């Protein structure tokens, strides 16, 4: 008689996937996002395996060998110092990734705590904390970054830090916004009604839900960090240590040669930047769409 009550599964119940798995599947079916993922994964892999992948020491070369156009020996040619451009791009992935990751994770660390406090406490505390964010946001970003770099002296970490400072108010505001929205949700109410209190609600119920937009923003911030670092390089505030290849600096050092016979020296680092940034952006967009089922197209 069991069959009397036989139920057809609810539509969503037909697939045994978790929420994340669901998002992942949406991601997998999103063409541009997959391109982004491939680019990002490739970029990370290149950074991780740089010592294995790079055909030459990125730092060794003599000016006698300078400006060798791409050849089987030097696939992407050599730069002004006679160093192998491919190897420098491969090692440069590390620096770029480092700047991106460091700036975003530092920005996240501070921004999240800040935003969580403001959003969770609410009231006057929130009000004034947000005014501080307003102050930070109303300072012209690039100038702020440059000022910090000037203050701390050039270097990869400094740049990452300066970009992180720029990210803090963005992340903080984003997180606060979603926390405020989530604080009044029924499921938070439900959790309170069974006796759950402050920290637990914040950590278990609010944060995991509030973090989604931040994850997306962080992915995009990774991309922005790489471009920003390149821009800083152009203005002369790049990581000045010549022994550490970095894409932005490579481009900055060579863009002058774009029209004078050695265009490839600028072209390849430029392409590396564009591809990695594009990768993060595509992935970020894809994440936005797949983490938010409403935006499904």
């Amino acid at each position, binding site marked *: 008689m069991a069959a009397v009550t036989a139920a057809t599964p609810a539509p969503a119940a037909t697939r045994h996937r978790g929420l994340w798995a669901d998002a992942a599947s949406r991601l997998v079916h999103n063409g541009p996002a997959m391109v982004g993922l491939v680019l990002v994964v490739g970029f990370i892999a290149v950074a991780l395996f740089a010592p294995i992948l790079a055909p030459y020491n990125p730092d060794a070369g003599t000016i006698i060998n300078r400006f060798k156009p791409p050849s089987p020996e030097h696939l992407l040619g050599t730069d002004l110092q006679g160093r192998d451009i491919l190897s420098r791009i491969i090692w440069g992935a590390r620096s770029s990734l480092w700047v991106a990751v460091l700036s975003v994770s530092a920005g996240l660390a501070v921004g999240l705590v800040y935003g969580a406090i403001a959003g969770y406490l609410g009231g006057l505390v929130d009000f004034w904390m947000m005014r501080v964010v307003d102050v930070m946001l109303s300072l012209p970003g690039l100038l702020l970054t440059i000022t910090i770099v000037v203050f701390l002296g050039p270097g990869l970490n400094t740049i990452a830090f300066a970009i992180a400072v720029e990210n803090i108010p963005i992340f903080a505001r984003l997180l606060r916004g979603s926390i405020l929205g989530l604080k009044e949700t029924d499921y938070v109410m439900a959790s309170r009604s069974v006796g759950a209190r402050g920290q637990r609600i914040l950590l278990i119920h609010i944060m995991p839900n509030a973090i989604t937009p931040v994850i997306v923003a962080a992915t995009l911030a990774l991309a922005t960090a790489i471009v920003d670092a390149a821009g800083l390089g152009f203005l*002369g505030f790049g990581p000045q240590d010549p022994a550490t290849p970095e894409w932005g600096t490579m481009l900055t*050092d060579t863009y*002058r*040669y774009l029209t004078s016979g050695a265009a490839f020296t600028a072209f390849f680092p430029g392409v590396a930047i564009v591809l990695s940034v594009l990768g993060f952006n595509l992935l970020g967009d894809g994440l936005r769409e797949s983490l938010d089922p409403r935006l499904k197209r």
Partner: protein
Amino acid sequence: GSSTATTAPSAASSAASTSAASQAASTAPSAAASTAPSGGTPVNGGTMIFGSASDPSTLDAILIQDGESFRIAQQIYETLIKLKPGTASDLEPGLAKSWDVSPDGLTYTFHLQTGVMFTDGTPFNADAAIYNVNRWKNLPEPLQGSDYYDITVFGGYGADSLISSVNKIDDSTFSITLKSPKADFLTAMTLAPFGMQSPTALQKYNADLAPTDPKNTYWQTAPTGTGPFMFKEFVPGDHYTIVKNPNYWDPANAAHLDSVVFKPIADSANRLAALKSGTVDIIDFVDANQLNDVKSDNTLQLLMRSPLAIGKYAFNQTQKPFNDLKVREAAAYAIDKQALVSAFFPGLGTVADSDLINTFPAYEPNQTITGYDPQKAKDLLASSTCPAPCSIDFWYPDNTSRPYMVDPKGEFEAIRQMLEAVGFKVNPQHKDWHGGYLTAEANGQYPSFFIGWIYDYGDPADGPGLFYATSTAKCNGVSYTTPHNCEFGEDNPAVAAAMAKAIAEPDAATRTQDWKDAMKLINADVPDVPLVWAGSALGASTSIHGYIPSPTQSEYFNLVWKSNS
């Protein structure tokens, strides 16, 4: 000077002269390497857009220290004495028709041109000239300290000033009396900072108030001289315009162009792009890697200035390990200058082996360091107090490109490879050029570093004479005259004595020999590794004619004209 971008002619033509043309200076390099084709009869009219590197920083003549300000001042102000176009040392009458020097070499009498007016209508006469000279002598307190050339030429204000008195003789004659003889006084008078400015304008626009005072609007709104061009307008960050002075006192030399606009374009690649796209007519400081680009474009011409700058890798002998001569020698032998110059200065520089440029009569090949020899470098290092791997700090500046140091980081990187090849272990050190690189360098904080020098005077006294002529150093910027010792830590009494002798020697031939002797001594000490003698280049549209490049960058735009096409 080293920090100030450029300029200033020189010539120690010590012989007093009443004639308009003095004889060729004995020590100065020869005339421009190339000249814009005169290409027929000058055409009047038109505007030339000059793609410069930055805005002028002041146009109150006596405060000027940077090249861009020099360039404009040169057109709107006139000095008592001028340089002959394209030369570094040939004197020519300016606002003074002629001049006499008293036998004791202390009193100079200037006979002024007559019928000259400032562009605001104020007559230029002895009173106006005296007003200017007195202003140099008694520079208003708020302006003091910003007057680099006033200080270097006259040494200070009031009681400190080298000028003892200024006397009016008649309406068109006046004299300056110095406290002690100064052989290069006349040459110094050709420097743009000593251009004549209208007393009326200076007063009207409160030029004597502090530059920070909003009421002092002189140079931004009304710099007034007698020159072939006059101020039109200044839009900071956008352009600076001068226009033809329609009432120029010397019609034969009146400007052809109606106006010249200076458009600051900081980045050299953008500057070239602007030239090639026709946005500007002429640009200064074409990069070495761009020379071919300009040459191969048949709508463009290249205007070369012969070298008057030296770039070098210098040591501070008071710091380890560079207190050891062998270490310095090892570094000197390790560097392949030829490779360096062909990589970074193709067409703009030649391999240097001395602080003196080889166009100077006193130049003599370096007998201590005879060339690139890595093996020798290795051996020297091995036997030194700092055997391989010898760890050294090597400083280079960020955010600058100088004629003698076009790509500091790139050059550093290249030299680092060379040094490490012979057993040095180089620690890269860098600081922003504007952010204290020079201050720390001048204070002797760097063990080894990049530095360079653009001669204001084509005279050894202006180079090695400044760096190494004293053996005792005061190292916190207190002394104005020879502070450079702090940076190099060269403390060899023999060198100091030899140089002092050379600087004091009145006879040209003896002086040349004295300098050769002094240079031998200094070269033996290896206080630095001279890398390159560098010139610079302008790029111009082929419609620009009559532009005569000068090694000192004192170029006169009234000679320039523009063909229609």
